[in-house]
């Protein structure tokens, strides 16, 4: 969809018109910002705010015009210092909650704000699109967004090479996401930076609007509670009102986290966990009125600690990170409750409240299987870890019976150390979500996140990051299987941003046995020649006749060859430490020690360069140097960014699209902004796309259509068709 407006470069908010008088309030803004886009009838909040003069007690007044017509605010007392009562000290604010445009086209919002020292006029031009116009064919009923957090092109390539390898220049197979016929690129910028974080990185896809970093489903504001910030309606909310759809959220992260929350929760602080998880339930429309809320019916992931009352060990609920009520006009404008019993209270038993609202609850993999074994529930809550779920490698190792060596010399299963010994894999969680959501004849919006691709990329742990891609891709296979089964489904594989500048620089030479003996703290010449002049970690020598030991084993160009990994029956590599393992560099790296071996634990340690000479001989680390921290022997690579973690990049990310019932996948071919995705999905859901012909299905097969996927439970809806469309 083309944005008909061309926002002035660098202008985030309003055109400021200041009259000739010198005194005037500062920082006057109107939201939505200039250039915002909406659907017809998509709700959003309008807010005018400004910082009062410090020379006199402000007496704030404001007036609002939309397309030249005067419109009343829903809150904000005129001629007072307090206005709406929820603006920060020193600020005045006036709100119009839950507004929407009934007609498509370009519109103007103009406001005048005065603190008693002189008026300031601000305005914004917004564009409104009609997703109902032009019945194009068959409607998309189900929307599935597969979100690989931080996953760029190179992450996918690495996953493919590990899973399938290549020979004579050809990949030996394709990941599930690579078999989708539609390919495009997506820019990932946020409202305030070319480099986003996961909050606006997700909300842009599902609201059509950019948000500030750290904020989700809201515009920025100066208000006393971040849950009061001006809202923008999500895809889930809009389609729930318009079509009665349900929402499902599945993630390997703590469910408080930005990616799942930025599909359903409105807050100016992604870290306000208590309020975020409360809002999942409180604005889910549990009674099924279809008049408001998200229609949340499936919520699976980590973060149990936010759902436990403070009387329970491990609870993270606090009053400071929540809210007990919403402003009356916000609640009225959005049709949500002003307050709900227990909302924002540390003592709230939120799991109990979910159950009372009709959700079945599962705390581990076994309970998840049990919940789905009989009649499929209408609603499902699964909390499989206290915080983030563990990474794929650690979950797989538990299933394989492989323990990790701890720094004190003992061994244990990492998942056991996190008191979550029986966690499902992402494809199993996805299967459960589809089973429950497919009960809704009106369709659903489902977001499935592979969260730890990003986390492990930040930590520059290539092996774990690649395994996360493989776990995520298995879930993509489940999504495709269900799209084929249900029909009228569009599946997108996306990322919120790229992380770490992940790049495949070559493959190991010399083998793992030799690698385990290397020490970049001593001069090493692997060619057998003199070590005179060879650099070591921290060396300032200018003679680079031989590089660090761990650099000397990086096989580039021809010497990379074609690494081949043994894949076990569970779909994961037997080991990542093969003799010519793929080696990954990081273009957005922090300082790190690199030993190229799989780290025994998710993090061994992160020594700062100033501790390069620290001795660990007597600190309880095992004698086996391969199990020691990489700082003991690894090559020190100084970062291009400060600190010891890699960062997000501004690189575009690939989108892969698949659709059944229509050729909606074709809409995502080419380059687009992240917010364009929202308008394309909306149009597919409300005016559709041309139907797929039988020939189109044949074309899919020719491109490598790979039907099916594992249904580990053995339950087939074909055998119980009642569950497909209740």
């Amino acid at each position, binding site marked *: 969809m083309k944005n008909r407006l061309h926002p002035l470069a660098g202008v985030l908010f309003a055109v400021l018109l200041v009259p000739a008088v010198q005194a005037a309030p500062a920082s006057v803004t109107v939201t939505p910002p200039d250039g915002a886009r909406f659907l017809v009838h998509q709700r959003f909040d309008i807010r005018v705010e400004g910082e009062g003069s410090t020379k006199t007690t402000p007496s704030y007044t404001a007036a609002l015009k939309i397309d030249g017509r005067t419109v009343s605010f829903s809150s904000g007392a005129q001629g007072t210092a307090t206005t709406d009562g929820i603006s920060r000290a020193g600020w005045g604010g006036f709100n119009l909650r839950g507004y929407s445009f009934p007609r498509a086209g370009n519109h103007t919002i103009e406001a005048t704000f005065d603190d008693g020292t002189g008026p300031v006029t601000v305005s914004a031009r917004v564009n409104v699109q009609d997703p109902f116009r032009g019945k194009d064919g068959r409607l998309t009923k189900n929307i599935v967004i597969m979100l690989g957090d931080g996953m760029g092109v190179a992450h996918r390539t690495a996953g493919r090479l590990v899973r399938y390898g290549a020979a004579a220049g050809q990949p030996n197979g394709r990941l599930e996401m690579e078999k989708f016929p539609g390919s495009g690129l997506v820019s990932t910028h946020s409202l305030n930076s070319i480099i986003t974080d996961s909050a606006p990185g997700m909300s842009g896809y599902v609201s059509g609007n950019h948000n500030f970093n750290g904020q989700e489903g809201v515009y920025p504001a100066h208000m006393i509670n971040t849950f009061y910030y001006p809202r923008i309606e999500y895809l889930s909310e809009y389609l729930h009102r318009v079509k009665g759809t349900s929402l499902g959220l599945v993630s390997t992260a703590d469910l408080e986290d930005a990616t799942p929350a930025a599909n359903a929760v409105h807050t100016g602080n992604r870290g306000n966990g208590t309020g975020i998880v409360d809002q999942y339930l409180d604005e889910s429309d549990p009674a099924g009125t279809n008049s408001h809320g998200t229609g949340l019916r499936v919520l699976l992931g980590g973060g149990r600690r936010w759902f436990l009352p403070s009387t329970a060990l491990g609870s*993270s609920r606090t009053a400071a990170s929540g809210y007990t009520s919403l402003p009356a006009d916000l609640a009225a404008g959005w049709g949500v409750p002003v307050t709900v019993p227990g909302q924002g209270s540390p003592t709230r038993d939120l799991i109990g409240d979910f159950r009372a609202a009709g959700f079945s609850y599962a705390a581990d993999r076994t309970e998840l299987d049990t919940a789905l074994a009989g009649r499929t529930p209408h609603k499902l809550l699964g909390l499989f870890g206290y915080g983030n779920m563990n990474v794929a490698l650690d979950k797989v190792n538990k299933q394989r019976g492989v323990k990790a060596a701890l720094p004190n010399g003992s061994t244990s299963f990492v998942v056991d150390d996190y008191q979550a010994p029986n966690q499902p894999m992402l494809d199993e969680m996805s299967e459960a979500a589809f089973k429950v959501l497919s009960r809704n004849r009106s369709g659903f919006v489902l977001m499935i996140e592979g969260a730890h691709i990003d*986390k492990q990329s930040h930590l520059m742990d290539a092996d774990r990051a690649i395994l996360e891609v493989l776990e995520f891709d298995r879930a993509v296979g489940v999504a495709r299987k269900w799209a084929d089964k249900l029909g009228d489904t569009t599946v997108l594989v996306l990322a919120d941003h790229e992380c770490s500048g992940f790049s495949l620089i070559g493959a190991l030479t010399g083998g793992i046995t030799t690698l385990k003996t290397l020490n970049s703290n001593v001069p090493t010449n692997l060619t057998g020649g003199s070590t005179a002049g060879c650099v070591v970690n921290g060396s300032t020598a200018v003679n680079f006749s031989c590089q660090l030991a761990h650099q000397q084993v990086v096989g580039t160009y021809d010497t990379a060859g074609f690494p081949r990994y043994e894949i076990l029956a569970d779909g994961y590599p037997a080991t990542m430490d093969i003799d010519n393992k793929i080696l990954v560099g990081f273009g957005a790296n922090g300082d790190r020690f690199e030993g190229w071996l799989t780290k025994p634990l998710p993090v061994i340690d992160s020594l700062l360069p100033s501790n390069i000479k620290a001795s660990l001989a007597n600190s309880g680390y095992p004698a086996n140097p391969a199990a020691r921290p990489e700082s003991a022997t690894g090559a020190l690579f100084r970062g291009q960014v400060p600190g010891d973690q890699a960062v997000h990049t501004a690189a575009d990310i690939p989108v892969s699209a698949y659709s059944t019932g229509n050729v909606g996948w074709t809409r995502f071919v080419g380059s687009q902004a992240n917010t364009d995705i929202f308008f394309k999905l909306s149009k597919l859901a409300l005016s559709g796309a041309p139907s797929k012909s039988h020939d189109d299905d044949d074309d899919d097969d020719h491109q490598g259509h790979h039907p099916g996927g594992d249904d580990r439970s053995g339950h087939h809806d074909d055998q119980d068709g009642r569950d497909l469309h209740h």
Partner: protein
Amino acid sequence: MSSPILVALVVLLGANPSPVAEPVPLAFTELVRPTSTALVPTQKLLSLKGKRVRLTGFMAKMEYPSKGAFWLTQSPVVCDEAGAGTGDLPPNAVFVVVRSLAAENVPFTPRPLEVTGVLDVGYRAEPDGRATHIRLILDRLEDLSSKS
């Protein structure tokens, strides 16, 4: 940067004219236990509430650390902004309060540490809005890698 501050902590906090009981060694595996439906503190943990204990672990590296305190974990942990900044802490992480650094960030020390102090158990909402359940009011901290 961290060593001089650690020395100062040891001197400042270790100097106590009153006779104190020998700290009871405590392992992370002795802090919590699962029941069929929940995680609960062990009897040993509850019996040591208000007593001096000694634990060995690692300071969690936090993108958003708490002022005047740090989290001690069994194995090294890095927490970024995910999960409100604490998403990767295990449930048995111990919140170590460093009274002398009340308004400051405790300098990060990546090496194994031995902490000694008075144990406190029970829910508390900290000033930064985070909840804690197992706390240690620090008396003494020792960097184990400096032991010969």
